[in-house]
């Protein structure tokens, strides 16, 4: 088949896309990376990184961003595993309907989705009204512009990703394998942990990677639910770039963000089971 397509044809098919991305994706990123290392008169240096990293505010924001990701990811795993298990075992028609509902938060405009949480979590919102009616609190509790609000918003955004990844992993576990475990004496609960979980582990790692890195780079959710009071890496970067017009700092934060996600990406890959 390769012989039917000479190299020239391959180049012709790939060329336009490659050139486009080189120009309008790779080059700008490379440019920013170089700029972050270049200081006029001193040449190439890491001094800018030193300045940003030693800044107290940056350190606090960086840790907060990691903390949020560390809370959202396990919550997403806990809620997704049983949900994905049930969804993967449904007949095709019903599964399709439910899956198209699951992906709704992913497909809806992030502004509209996050705005819904303002209505939910505001002083007059449904959550405050409910806890006051139940007598849990007498005064409205401030929930907007907190880490908790960001966590809730990100969880809604990333649960679908975790569910989707796990459902497709579990669809590859034949029902008979589970039945074999039952026939050999496992309870359903036991079979779930001994058979379903190990066999969907690769999907789990995939989902964890997507959700964790997603939490670190998400912008709209922390921007609306955290505001300028509770900054994360991305909202901090936006503030430096567009409000304070400190492009040097923004550039450094951008590079740190990319490096962090790349480390996570490759670090989590080590947990992937080796090909049998």
């Amino acid at each position: 088949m390769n012989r039917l397509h000479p190299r020239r044809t391959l180049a012709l098919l790939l060329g336009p896309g490659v050139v486009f991305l080189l120009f309008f994706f790779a080059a700008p990123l490379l440019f920013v990376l170089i700029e972050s290392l270049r200081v006029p008169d001193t040449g190439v240096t890491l001094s800018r990184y030193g300045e940003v990293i030693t800044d107290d505010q940056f350190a606090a924001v960086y840790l907060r961003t990691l903390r949020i990701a560390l809370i959202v990811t396990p919550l997403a795993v806990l809620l997704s595993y049983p949900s994905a298990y049930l969804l993967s075992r449904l007949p095709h028609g019903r599964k399709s309907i439910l899956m198209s509902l699951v992906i709704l938060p992913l497909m809806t405009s992030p502004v509209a989705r996050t705005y819904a949480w303002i209505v939910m979590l505001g002083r007059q919102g449904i959550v405050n009204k409910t806890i006051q009616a139940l007598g849990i609190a007498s005064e409205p509790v401030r929930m907007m512009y907190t880490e908790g609000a960001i966590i809730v918003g990100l969880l809604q955004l990333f649960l679908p990703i975790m569910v989707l990844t796990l459902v497709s992993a579990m669809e590859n576990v034949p029902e008979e394998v589970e039945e074999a475990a039952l026939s050999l004496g496992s309870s359903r609960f036991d079979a779930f942990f001994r058979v379903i979980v190990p066999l969907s582990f690769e999907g789990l790692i995939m989902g964890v990677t997507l959700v964790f890195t997603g939490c670190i780079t998400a912008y709209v959710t922390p921007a609306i639910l955290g505001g300028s009071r509770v900054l994360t890496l991305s909202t901090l970067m936006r503030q430096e770039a567009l409000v304070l017009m400190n492009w040097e700092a923004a550039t450094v934060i951008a590079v740190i963000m990319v490096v962090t996600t790349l480390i996570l990406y490759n670090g989590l890959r080590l947990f992937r089971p080796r090909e049998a």
Partner: protein
Amino acid sequence: MAYVELQSVTAGYVAHDPVLRDFSLRVERGELLSLLGPSGCGKTTTLRTIAGFLLAQEGRVVVNGRDYTRLPPNKRNIGIVFQTYALFPHLSVFDNVAYGLRRRRVSRQEISTRVAGALELVSLTGLEERLPAHLSGGQRQRVALARAIVIEPDLLLLDEPLSNLDAKLRDEMRGELARLQKQLGITMIYVTHDQVEALSLSSRIVVMNQGVIEQSDTPQAIFERPATPFVAHFMGFDNALSGTCREILGDRAVVEVSGHRFECRALPGGKELSAGEAVRLLFRPVDVRFVGADGADRLNTLPVRMEFSNYQGTSTLCGLVSGDQRLTAVVDGAVPPADGDLHVQIEPGAILLDTVTYESVGGKDG
């Protein structure tokens, strides 16, 4: 009470349209029972109901005197060999076989002895550390078998276990299964759609069709004396000649086919038959014999014309026409010359009588 009993069981996948309705089955201890039938006949539903993957909507499932009807599958102590083997892909051969023993909290030492024993039984010693992906089809089949028998189940269920193997391996495994059954004396229920498999393995065969038992008997009886047209068809009675019943002589019937006189056994199960009734003669292609022209006035013969013959090595398949009726014959070796008058003869004992009315009520083989 039999060792395994299904008593008036109703079961299926959708509540309003069960596959089995008021279905009863008895299996004696030590039996190797085959459930034989085409896909959709209810054999797998029966198996899944016994295994506990399907709950009977009505009726009872009893094994070894214990009521299993509501018991979850993991409490049943039934070994299952799945059609796809359903090995645990993430576990080694050893861990696959040890799985059921660990669930039963068997001591480490005993596990290693019993797993070793089971693997020896299926000739897999030495492959303990392999993952299923690194085994051949036949080896996977053996692991599945070892995994199911190592728990010393009260009952072993096999769901078309040989259907994913090639022809040669299938013969080999069949022999092995028979040996194991004899050696271990486990009660087995074996689901298959392959009559050769059922005939060669079973102590008893239950032929099923559309959720109903058509016949339950020894392999020999099923093969030689099918009780219904469905079983006959399934057992290779591919020829059907239409005729008219002329008289009944005790357990024999005389039938006229296109002016030729045929004698055969009367209807099975002592069913009534009267002279003048339209009937069909069912017989296997291998039971058709060519006789010389001088045999024309012998008993049970029919003049035929050869339409085609297909040489198949050890035998030859002949397409024959007699008047407006067609039949096929499978003969050993040479075929008589195609020109001139040909006559075929079918022994009375090889013919099965089928009333046309009976067929339209009971036969569902269409």
